[in-house]
């Protein structure tokens, strides 16, 4: 971001705010994860953490003007879902592969 044009300035500010908010969201999900109180709360907190991480990765790629980490975000989206399902299934049925 060497040329401080108007768009650059807006993008930079948006990124700053974005990072700030997403980081706050990460910390809040962590808080929910720790205090619970129930197991489904924790699953939801973890799932939210996954989503927030995706946001972080995308923000990072925008900042670096690259697309190197989009795949990582894609995989988190894919795996996060499977993980959430597995954890939830464990709570309802105990046996996740039956």
């Amino acid at each position, binding site marked *: 971001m060497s040329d401080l044009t108007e768009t650059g300035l807006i993008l930079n500010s948006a990124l700053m705010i974005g990072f700030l908010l997403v980081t706050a969201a990460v910390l809040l999900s962590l808080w929910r994860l720790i205090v619970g109180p129930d197991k489904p709360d924790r699953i939801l907190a973890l799932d939210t953490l996954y989503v927030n991480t995706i946001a972080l990765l995308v923000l990072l790629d925008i900042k670096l003007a690259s697309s190197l980490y989009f795949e990582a975000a894609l995989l988190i989206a894919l795996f996060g879902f499977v993980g959430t399902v597995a954890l939830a299934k464990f709570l309802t049925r105990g*046996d996740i592969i039956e």
Partner: protein
Amino acid sequence: MTQLALIVLIPFIGALLPSWALTAGRLWSAWVTGGVVVSALALLVAPAWAVMQGETLLWQLDWLPALGLSLGFRLDGLALLFALMILVIGLLVILYARWYLAERDPMGRFYAYLLLFMGSMLGLVMSENLIQLLMFWELTSISSFLLISYWRQREDARRGARMALAITGGGGLALLGGILLLGEIVGSYDLSTVLAAREIIHAHPLYLPALVLILLGIFTKSAQFPFHFWLPHAMAAPTPVSAYLHSATMVKAGVFLLARLFPALSGSEAWTWLVAPTGMATLLIGAYTALFKHDLKGLLAYSTISHLGLITLLFGIGSPLAAVAGLFHIMNHATFKASLFMAAGIIDHEAGTRDMRRLAGLWRFMPQTGLLAMIAAAAMAGVPLLNGFLSKEMFFEKTVYMATFEESTWLLPVLATIAGALAVAYSLRFIHDVFFNGTPTDLPRTPHEPVRWMRVPVEILVVICIAVGIFPSLTFGPLLAVAAGATLQAPLPAYSLKVWHGFTPALGMSMLALSGGALIYAIRRPLFRWHERTLGQLDARWLYEVWERALLQGSRVLDHLIHRRSLQDMLAVLIIAAAAMLLLGFWGMPLTGSATLTPLDPVSAAAAFCLAVGALGTVVLHRQRWTALVMLSVVGLIIALAFVKFSAPDLALTQLAVEMVTIILLLLALHFLPAETPRESSLARKLRDLLLALLGGGLTTVLTWAVLTRPYDSISDWLLRNSVPGGGGSNVVNVILVDFRGFDTLGEITVLAIAAIGIYMMLRDLRLEAPRADAQGRPWSSDAHPLILATFSRLLLPLALMVAVFILLRGHHLPGGGFIAGLIIAVALVMQYLANGVLWTQTRLSGELHPLIGLGLLLATATGLGSWYFGAPFLTSAHGHWSVPILGEIELASAMLFDIGVMLVVIGITLVILIRLGRIGLMQRRAPISNSDPKP
């Protein structure tokens, strides 16, 4: 001369066929096995012709040139002699075994092992590189172990196999040492170089240790005294195996090596004094013991030991003529002893016993077999006009020559004559006790002639015995000449293969031995009684058993000292040792180096905070296992982010995929474990562990800090520079995995595959009681596969597959690759199991999952081997550009195939392990349901 490699390779490949051919019938299995051998023989014809003209054929391929390792085959006279023996007798044994094996014996396994052995033995005799020779040497030990224990339900077979493996394996270890020393002395492991380096070897101070170690290998393999006792116990093998391995071929591997290294090692005092007395002792002890064995095969086994001793003695004498006699006797012994073993097998097969105290008068029942056995036994005894006579007379002649040459060796002809007489006596016993000597009493079966085809191999061998005995120079003569030339690596000495040499001392010794043998046999009864009282009490086996027990006991004591059977205790020792080494090694060095630190940004700080909280949470909540697992997921996720932060996208992707598989794995395991970990540790123990944790963690932090604050050069620059020109890919991580260090990857996926198959087998029959309610006592939800979840997850599969293909294809240039793609596919499939159930998914996946593992390994290996076809070293990658419609310009490397192999292995193992684990409880719960409500 690629043919040479093919000749060795054919039996190995062919070993896959007999079991498969068995589906078409037992006869087919034998035909196919025979066909494999015939094709190897056919390939040998042209090279053999060249060798008979005096050429030495070589074929070499660089393997690990930096370590002096090359794959090389050599066909000279000596190798040809052995290769012919292995293939021809092997063919006869295959024919014989077809009729020998009973219906209930698994024939495919037998032939597969036999071919495995044949390939190993061929590789051994045709090796040009000494290390490679040793490899095949060990393979013969292993295949011999498998063949001896073929009837694995029998205790004596298992014990005999173990003993043979322990003795020959131990000898192999000594041989390895000897060969390494020899290679060190000469500076090369190539046989051609070693054979030409006689002066260097003899002048070197390491000559004696190398010689002793190599001889240990030779003596154990060829059953020389005092290591001879494994051979009689190996007779628990099926008789075709005894005929093939333990008389004609494998036990000759020792004397083969004696002949092979003869030009390089022989001719010193040490050689003569180590080899000749061993041979003489073995010759006498073998012949003496053979006389007193009541078991037919036992007699033949000791007779084999004795003849091996004779051959060893001939090489030990060390003169070129003695070596020629030794080679000649190798050929003769193989023919008559193999036929004798086969005859013994026929007797056992048709009469039901091999005990000479029960057998008698079989002549009336099986005159043809009797005649064949008689001729072969006469050859063994050294009766004129048979091949055994010729080489034995050459042997007698050498001993007389030695005696006239040197006064002190007058004992040699005397002992040789005694051994000859003993051989005559046991040969007489073999014939007289079995075929005459009254009428049989209480035989398990009424004896009769065997099937025609079972006798044919014996007939062929006996005809050879007679033909060689009468026309030696027309039959074995030319082959012996080239073999002797190759053994000596020098012009041949003058010798003549004739039946009649005139009245020589050797002839006198032969006659003396024949009449002396008859005399010994005549007075056998008092001799037997005397033997029972005295020497019969001795058995070398107890020595071995004492040694084996001591070894086991010692290992147990050592194991008890080192192994504390507690993971915590072992870890404590490990951490303390590591900490002590760190403190000792780095004490007094400045902590912080000169490198400038990267500034800290708030996002990273927050992530680090999450990481710390996650880790702490896992520890604090570790008793609640499920919650701890969730905390652990946070740690895994943040570590993936850390990899992103430090520009390692490949690692991030891998970490994410592994993380997911781990969660599923742990959840599967948690289902069968209590929900909470009970409190077991005492306070003192907790304090100790806390201290250890602080010590370990603190030191790791300090060390990491110290390393990261110092500037350092790594090899990554080289890799970055060479990735595109060398591997054709700009993703360095992937290029390293599939190209630069492709061999490591191949090893790793192989280990992984072996582990997965082990897990598969161990979990196969495991059934565990699954809890019927959760930890709080609530019953499980009745809806196993909610509709919405099932429908959504089905949509996920094609998307995930597309992502996987994308990740795989781009892997060579951008973050991705086969490993990650494999995990993605595996997770997507596991998701189907999870959401739709095992039954639903299994019916839609055609076939089993574990063949995927084998397929992947084969593909990866084939890619590696493929580069040989183009004359490049193993696993060399080729790459090129192609322009494809729609997709545009793509670069494909052969490493891509390798990567697909990796992917298949990963999919296979992940699914096999996870699904197997998931089904432990399934069977149990399904069973009662399927009784009342059968499902499709």
